[in-house]
C-alpha cells in the first residue's frame, strides 16, 4: 500500500494532458510520422495529411518512400536509407514529396531510428519540414553555381590545353597533348589524332585504343564527314553506331567503348586531320560539349601549323636540300651513335664512301641543272638499296657516305657492291652516251678490347682513302680496308 503526500492526478486531468499532447502532435508546425524498420507508416499527424492532401487512413500502411517523387525515391534508396541505417540518424535531407494533386512539395527531413525496446519493435521517427521557399532560393543558387562552374571548367580546360599545346615541339608532342586534353577536359576514355599525309608514318598518334578494327568498321567515313562538313561528328551510343555501320557497334564494344566524337583539325590550306575521342558509356552530346571539342581542335590546329614549320626547319638544318639525304651534320650525329652502339654491343661497323665517276663530264657538258638531276637520281637509288636503318648522307659535291651498323667486312662488301651496281645502271637524266659509275671505299671496324675506339673522322678518312684506291685502280670498283 502506498501513501502519497499529494493527491494523484484525477482521471480527467490525465485525459486533458493526453489530449493536449495529441493536439501538439497532430497540429505541429511540421509533418511528423513513425514507420516500421521497413519504412511502412504506422503513425502520422494531421499536418502531413493536410500538406500532402492524402487522408490519414490512406497514409497509414503506405511505405514512406512511396510518398516521394521518383527522383526523391532514387536518392532515398541509394543514400538516405543507407546512411540512416548505418548512422541511426539523418538531418536536413532535402527531398520532394508527391502530393495528392500531383504537386511536388519540397521538404527537409530529419529521421531517427529508435531501437527495439522491450515489447516495442524498432521504429523510425521522421519529421518533415515544408521547404518550398528555401528550395526556390536554393534552386536559383544551384542553377547559378552550375552555370558558373560549367563556364569556369570550360575556360580551365581550354587554358590548360593552350599551355600544354604551347610547349609542344613536334607533331607527336602536340598530338599527345591533345589526347591528354581530351581525357581531362572531355573525360574521354581514350583518344586518337589522325593526320593523313603526315610523313614518316606519323599519321596516327593514339593512346589506349586499337585503331585498326575501328578503321575497318568505317571510322574513316565518319572522319571524312567531320573534315568535309567542318563539324563535330558524334556517335552517342552503340545502338546509334549500329545504324551508321553494321559492324561499328561490335568493334567499339570489343574495346569496351560506347560512344565517340570526331572534330576536324584545319589549317590554312584545308583539313589537316581529325581528333577522335572515345567514351566508355553512352553520351549526351549537347552544344556545350561540342563547342569545347571544336575549340580544342581549333587550338590544336593553330599550333599544328607552328610545330610543322619548326619540324620543317629542323629537317632542313640536318638534310641536304637538293637530294633530301642526311647532311654532314646529321651524318656526324648518326656516326657517333653508331660507334657507341658498336662498342656497347661488340658488333662490327662499316663506313661506305662513294664518289661518282664521270659526274664532272656531265656537269661540264650538260650544265648544273642536269648535274643536279643526276645527283637526285643517284641519291634515290642509294636510298633504295640501302638497308632501312642505314643512314645515307651527301658528304660533298658528288660524294656520299653510308653508315652500316652491324656489318662486318664481308657484309659491307656485299652492300657496297649493290651500291656500285645500282649507280652503274643507265641514268634517265642523261643521254646514254654519258656514263656515270661509282668508285667505292669501305672501312670496317670491329670493336676490340685492346685498342681504343677510332675517331669518327678517322673512319671516314679510311673509307675515303679506300675509295681513292678504287679510283686509282680503274674506277667503278669496291676497295675494302679494316681498321
Amino acid at each position, binding site marked *: 500500500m502506498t501513501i502519497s503526500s499529494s493527491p494523484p492526478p484525477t482521471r480527467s486531468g490525465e485525459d486533458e494532458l493526453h489530449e493536449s499532447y495529441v493536439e501538439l502532435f497532430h497540429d505541429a508546425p511540421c509533418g511528423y510520422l513513425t514507420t516500421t524498420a*521497413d519504412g511502412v507508416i504506422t503513425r502520422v499527424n494531421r499536418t502531413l495529411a493536410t500538406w500532402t492532401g492524402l487522408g490519414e487512413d490512406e497514409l497509414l500502411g503506405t511505405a514512406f518512400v512511396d510518398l516521394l517523387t521518383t*527522383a526523391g525515391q532514387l536518392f532515398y534508396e*541509394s543514400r538516405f536509407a543507407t546512411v540512416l541505417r*548505418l548512422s*541511426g540518424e539523418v538531418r536536413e535531407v*532535402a527531398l520532394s514529396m508527391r502530393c495528392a494533386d500531383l504537386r511536388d512539395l519540397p521538404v527537409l527531413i530529419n529521421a531517427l531510428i529508435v531501437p527495439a525496446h522491450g515489447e516495442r519493435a524498432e521504429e523510425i521517427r521522421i519529421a518533415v519540414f515544408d521547404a518550398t521557399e528555401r528550395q526556390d532560393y536554393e534552386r536559383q543558387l544551384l542553377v547559378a553555381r552550375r552555370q558558373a562552374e560549367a563556364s569556369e571548367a570550360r575556360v580551365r580546360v581550354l587554358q590548360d590545353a593552350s599551355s600544354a599545346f604551347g610547349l609542344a615541339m613536334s607533331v607527336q608532342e602536340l598530338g599527345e597533348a591533345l589526347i591528354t586534353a581530351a581525357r581531362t577536359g572531355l573525360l574521354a576514355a581514350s583518344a586518337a589524332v589522325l593526320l593523313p599525309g603526315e610523313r614518316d608514318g606519323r599519321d596516327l598518334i593514339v593512346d589506349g585504343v586499337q585503331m585498326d578494327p575501328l578503321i575497318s568498321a568505317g571510322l574513316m567515313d565518319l572522319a571524312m564527314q567531320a573534315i568535309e562538313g567542318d563539324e563535330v561528328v558524334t556517335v552517342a551510343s552503340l545502338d546509334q553506331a549500329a545504324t551508321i555501320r553494321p559492324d561499328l557497334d561490335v568493334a567499339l564494344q570489343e574495346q569496351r567503348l560506347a560512344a565517340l566524337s570526331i572534330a576536324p583539325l584545319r589549317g590554312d590550306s584545308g583539313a589537316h586531320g581529325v581528333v577522335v575521342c572515345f567514351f566508355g558509356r553512352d553520351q549526351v552530346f549537347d552544344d556545350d560539349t561540342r563547342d569545347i571539342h571544336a575549340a580544342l581542335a581549333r587550338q590544336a590546329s593553330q599550333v599544328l601549323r607552328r610545330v610543322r614549320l619548326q619540324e620543317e626547319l629542323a629537317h632542313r638544318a640536318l638534310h641536304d636540300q637538293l637530294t633530301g639525304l642526311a647532311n654532314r651534320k646529321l651524318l656526324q650525329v648518326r656516326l657517333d651513335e653508331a660507334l657507341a652502339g658498336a662498342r656497347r654491343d661488340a658488333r662490327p661497323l662499316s663506313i661506305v664512301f662513294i664518289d661518282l665517276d664521270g659526274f664532272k663530264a656531265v656537269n661540264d657538258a650538260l650544265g648544273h641543272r642536269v648535274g643536279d638531276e643526276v645527283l637526285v637520281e643517284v641519291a634515290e637509288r642509294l636510298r633504295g638499296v640501302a638497308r632501312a636503318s642505314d643512314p645515307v648522307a651527301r658528304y660533298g659535291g658528288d660524294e656520299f657516305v653510308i653508315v652500316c651498323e652491324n656489318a662486318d667486312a664481308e657484309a659491307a662488301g656485299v652492300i657496297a657492291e649493290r651500291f656500285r651496281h645500282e649507280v652503274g645502271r643507265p641514268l634517265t637524266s642523261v643521254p646514254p652516251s654519258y656514263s656515270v659509275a661509282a668508285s667505292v671505299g669501305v672501312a670496317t671496324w670491329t670493336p676490340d678490347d685492346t685498342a681504343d675506339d677510332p675517331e669518327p673522322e678517322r673512319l671516314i678518312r679510311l673509307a675515303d682513302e679506300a675509295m681513292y684506291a678504287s679510283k686509282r685502280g680503274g674506277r667503278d670498283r669496291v676497295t675494302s680496308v679494316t681498321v
Partner: protein
Amino acid sequence: MSTIASAARSQVLRRNNVTVTGDPAGRPIVFAHGFGCSQEVWHAVAPRFESDHRVVLFDAVGSGASDLGAYDPARYDSLHGYADDLLEILDALDLHDAVFVGHSVAAMVGVLASNVDPSRFGALVLVGPSPRYLDDDDYTGGFSHADIEGLLDALDANYLGWSETMAPLIMGNPARPELGSDLTESFCSVDPRIASQFARVTFLSDNRRDLEQVRTPTLVLQCSEDVIAPPAVGRYVHEQISGSRFVQLAATGHCPNLSAPEELAAEITAFLR
C-alpha cells in the same frame, strides 16, 4: 616476387581500402558496395562467411575510406574503370574461383570484370542489379532522363557547397554502439563532385549488351518493392545471363544487405552449396 610488383599491389590495396578477414585457406568471397556508401553496408553480412571463406571487402575509389587522390575523372567516367580496379584487387590478392557479391551498380561492375577475365571468378551474386536504369523503346528500366536529372538535383541540393566534403551529421548510432561517430562519418562521407559523377555513371550507363557474355555461374537476387531495380529488371538480367538462377527475396527495399542480412546470406550460401 619483385619489389615493384609488391609495391604496386600494396598501392592497389591501399587505394581501395581493401580489408581481408576470415579463413585464409577458404574460398574467396568478395563483397562490393553500390552507389551511396561504402563497404560498411556489408557489416551484417560479411562476418557470416568468415568461418569458411576468405572474406574481401573494399571501397570503390571516391567512396568510404578509399584514396580520393586516386580519383581520375576520365578513368571513372564509365563502369569499366571500376571493373579494372576490381580486377587489380583480385590480381593483387591473387584470388581465383572467387565468389563476387555485388550490390546495385557493383553487380554490373562484377559482370564487366568477369567478362574481361573470367578466370578469376567462380560465381557472381548480383544483388538488385540493373543494366540500365533509363526506359528505352522496348525496355523498362524504371526511370526517365528527367528522373535521373532530378536525382542529380537532389544530390546537389543536399551537398550545396556547405562544405567540400559532406558527411552526414552523426551522433553515434544507438543500435550500434561499437561504432564511434568518427568512424561512421568516414563510411558515408562523400565528395560532392565525385558523388555527382558516380551517380551519372551509375544511372546513365547501358550495360545490357554485356549480360549475354557472362559465362560465370550467376545468382540474381531480387528484392520485393525495390524502386531502384524493379522486379522486371531483375528478371531481364536473369533471362540475359544464360544458366543464371533467379531468387526473389522477401526483403523489401533496395538494401537487403542492411534490412535482411540473414535472408541474403542464406540465399548466397544455398547457391554456393
